[in-house]
């Protein structure tokens, strides 16, 4: 078949577009890898130590990893039960006519930029935590965790609600027809269908929590130290993202410190990508909707 000129130009245009769109992510990965290479080769396994003191040549990132994981665990232990229980209410108990309003509210809430959560965190949350626990400073790992829980809550609710809502009504009817109470209908007929989607939703939430920067950066205290005792979250800490957000622009390009920071970014990116891709490809199938 002979292609007309416009068809040829058009085809090469759309082809270039898809190549660029899909290559960007690979480009980002490559750039991070190249720039962290200096750290990988010069520091090696030494990066997995706990002291970060560039002037003394110490580039241990364990404190940042600890901070990221601790903040993530706190955020998810709050957001998951609260979010799923709320989603159960909106999807199963709430009359359908209110659903639209609830969903719209949630979308708006999910759209609040993270810097504004940071502002709220620094003006209210950290002060409350300081007073409640009688601390010297409320800028703690706990504050970061709670703030992230609040941030990610709309996402958890709205995705879980979708998951529950997508279960065909016939299963609910059939279970009700057998004389089951709402609780039993949910547990035996609805949840088994929704559990995959909910798992996907939680993975996405996890990725979002790990990657969140601004809000955490303002309230966590930014000290590169693993708390003593180990599980004391009422102490300040540092996450990978807050470390990057504070210091990357102030570090000389090409220095070993810069490279070690980029290595942290690479680590973060690999984990978040793994969660996101897992969630979108293995758990969240229907409609191929994107979630931020």
């Amino acid at each position, binding site marked *: 078949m002979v292609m007309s000129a416009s068809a040829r130009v058009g085809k090469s245009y759309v082809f270039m577009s898809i190549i660029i769109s899909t290559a960007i992510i690979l480009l980002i990965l490559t750039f991070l890898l190249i720039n962290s290479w200096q750290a990988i080769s010069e520091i090696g396994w030494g990066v997995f130590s706990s002291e970060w003191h560039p002037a003394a040549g110490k580039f241990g990132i364990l404190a940042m990893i600890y901070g990221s994981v601790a903040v993530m665990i706190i955020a998810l232990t709050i957001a998951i039960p609260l979010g799923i229980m709320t989603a159960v209410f909106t999807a199963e108990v709430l009359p359908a006519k209110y659903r639209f309003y609830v969903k719209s509210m949630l979308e708006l809430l999910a759209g609040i930029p993270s810097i504004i959560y940071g502002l709220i965190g620094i003006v209210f949350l950290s002060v409350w935590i300081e007073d409640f626990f009688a601390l010297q400073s409320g800028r703690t790992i706990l504050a970061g965790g709670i703030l992230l829980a609040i941030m990610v809550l709309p996402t958890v609710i709205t995705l879980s609600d979708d998951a529950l809502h997508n279960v065909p009504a016939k299963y609910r009817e059939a279970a009700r027809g*057998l004389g089951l109470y709402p609780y039993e209908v949910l547990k035996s007929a609805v949840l088994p269908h929704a559990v995959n989607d909910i798992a996907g939703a939680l993975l996405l939430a996890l990725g979002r929590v790990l990657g969140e920067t601004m809000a955490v950066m303002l309230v966590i205290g930014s000290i590169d130290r693993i708390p003593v005792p180990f599980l004391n979250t009422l102490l300040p800490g540092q996450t990978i993202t807050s470390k990057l957000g504070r210091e990357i622009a102030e570090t000389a390009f090409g220095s070993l410190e810069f490279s070690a920071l980029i290595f942290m970014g690479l680590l973060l990116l690999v984990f978040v990508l793994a969660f996101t891709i897992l969630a979108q490809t293995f758990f969240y199938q229907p409609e191929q909707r994107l979630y931020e």
Partner: protein
Amino acid sequence: MNATAPLKIYQPEATSAIEMRDFNAWFAEAHILRDIRLSFRENRITCLVGPSGSGKSTLIRSINRINDDVGNYNCSGEIRLSNQNILASGNDVAKLRTRVGMVFQKPCVFPTTIAGNVLFGIRHLQKLSRPEKQTIVEENLKAAALWKEVKHRLQDKASSLSLGQQQRLCIARTLAVKPEIILFDEPTASLDPLSSRAIEDLMLSLKEKYTIVFVSHNIQQARRVADDLAFLCAGKLIEYGSSQQLFSNPTQEKTRKYLNEEFCDC
């Protein structure tokens, strides 16, 4: 509106299981059912017939209050079951539904094993030991005429069954919770003729123990199965009587036309 002859209220000689008194139903503004007065006889098969949109499904779905969960639904009047109004507020709807079972238009099996589907409801109602479970599965699958086909693969996925088998599995599941009344909402609508016949035979065998209410679009099927017939049109009960009488000697012209599958203008 139409000045029709006054309705002859059918007075069944057998005791009635359910009585509907001045029952009205609405979806939002639409008045779906108007002043329905009906009593379903015990251990008989009553078939609701009528053109699409006549309110048959709404009526049958009101009897176990499954419509309550649909948005914008409202009703008035009374539906009496063992002399109690089931529409009274404060009634335990879940408990009502264990007494009034329902089989839906499309077979809906849960994503578990065949045995798991049979036990799906009963498992919540009482604690069951292993042998009890086995007995229940076997008894109810037998009662639903499915035992022979599936007895060697009770642990298979229920979705591996054919549609007709799935529908019988749904019936077995309903029987397991020991209802007094079973509602069938067009149970053969999505099945092939052979599977439909199997369901019809099953209904006939079930009426010895249960009161059956049944919605069908298929007039021949109604003729084969029903003891009593209720003909609805545009939300009103046009005629109600024994199947034999309605087919051979209907009092209403509309009934005659509809049952003879002629064009019927309600």
